[in-house]
């Protein structure tokens, strides 16, 4: 009975933590999965496989939810996302499978995952600081754009006019290999990847910032579904942990998106970026310690 009560308390704590992560993540301009996985990997003893499967679920279901809105408004180009998914899906599946094998190596493998995730967190912080272009001039003269039908138009309320957009042919060709890396990382670390997709869609492919952000949010649903099946069918999840944290983050993120309009975003954003840097240092330190490279753990 005591174990059940303890479990119930743990469950409540997990829901509360996930809910909080869900609220603050949109304020920092990232998805819930980007905060969830590193925080739990860094500060708890939960097995990395269980954390990554839950993190992937958060990224995947949030992405499905984003798609239901953005595809309808035509802010996210469905055909471009399907094209990107043809690269993202195999990459995420390979990443997930490799991640499971690395974690199965024991303490050393888990240390490697933590240390490399810590480095990825630093990259996330840098990418979030990269300047983006709001309205790049559409250059739709590529043959690739016509072949795949990638011209889109949507009505931009703030400008009160229709906006035409399409990816540049060169950006498309150069972006696809990068998408493979991003999909791999998402599957391997159980992490959302909108932070990496936005610069690819905006700076490389030349999509307007709003379209790039919407596309990035809606892109990972298909890829992460494939990766998630790998974790689930290999029994690397726990239903109570998986469901409670997923629901917590999704509900929290909906509230966070509403708070975004009222809160002092700049201050909160800086605070969360500072937490992410600390989390990154802690993950690298803990990972190297577990790998036997660093003799002591700082945190």
């Amino acid at each position, binding site marked *: 009975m005591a174990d059940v009560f303890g479990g119930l308390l743990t469950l409540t704590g997990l829901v509360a933590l996930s809910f909080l992560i869900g609220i603050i993540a949109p304020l920092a301009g990232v998805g819930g999965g980007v905060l969830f996985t590193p925080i739990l990997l860094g500060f708890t*003893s939960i097995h990395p496989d*269980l954390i990554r499967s839950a993190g992937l679920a958060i990224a995947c279901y949030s992405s499905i939810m984003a798609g*239901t809105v953005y595809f*309808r408004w035509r802010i996210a180009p469905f055909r471009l996302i*399907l094209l990107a998914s043809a690269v993202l899906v*195999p990459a995420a599946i390979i990443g997930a499978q490799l991640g499971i094998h690395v974690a199965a190596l024991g303490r050393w493998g888990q240390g490697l995952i933590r240390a490399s995730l810590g480095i990825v967190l630093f990259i996330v912080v840098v990418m979030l600081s990269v300047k983006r272009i709001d309205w790049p001039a559409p250059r739709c003269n590529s043959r690739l754009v016509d072949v795949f039908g990638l011209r889109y138009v949507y009505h931009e309320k703030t400008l009160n006019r229709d906006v035409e957009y399409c990816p540049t042919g060169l950006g498309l060709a150069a972006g696809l290999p990068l998408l493979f890396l991003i999909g791999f990382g998402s599957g391997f670390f159980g992490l959302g990847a909108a932070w990496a997709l936005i610069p690819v869609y905006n700076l490389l492919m030349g999509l307007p910032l709003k379209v790039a952000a919407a596309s990035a949010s809606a892109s990972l649903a298909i890829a992460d579904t494939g990766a998630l099946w790998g974790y689930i069918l290999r029994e690397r999840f726990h239903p109570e942990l998986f*469901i409670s944290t997923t*629901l917590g983050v999704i509900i929290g993120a909906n509230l966070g998106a509403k708070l975004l309009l009222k809160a002092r975003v700049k201050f909160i954003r800086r605070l969360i970026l500072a937490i992410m840097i600390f989390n990154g240092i802690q993950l690298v330190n803990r990972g190297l310690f577990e790998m036997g490279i660093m003799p002591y753990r700082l945190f």
Partner: protein
Amino acid sequence: MKPADYTYAGVTRALLYVALAALTASLIIHAVLNPTGLEELSRIINGELNRWAPQTPVDYVPLYAIYFINLIVPIGLIYVLPTLFKENKLIAILTVFILILLTLMILTVEE
């Protein structure tokens, strides 16, 4: 005829709401009828557990709810495939490729 993106958004939205309700219900049912799952949470926090497989009939309730939510994307893609074929054949072929990958993933992974 509605465009594929509009139809996909509608189908996945309806399925997602059902799936989220099913997940919530399954969590409650599982916690009430089989408290072992709650007991295991304490072990998970201590890092003593790294996998889970259904042991009792009640364990299949959350498992099938999780299966269902993970089938939303493939169902949505299959549903819009005929429309996609009319809109752009190359993209439709890529979608078939994605569906084959997902199917292979589901059918071939063994523990």
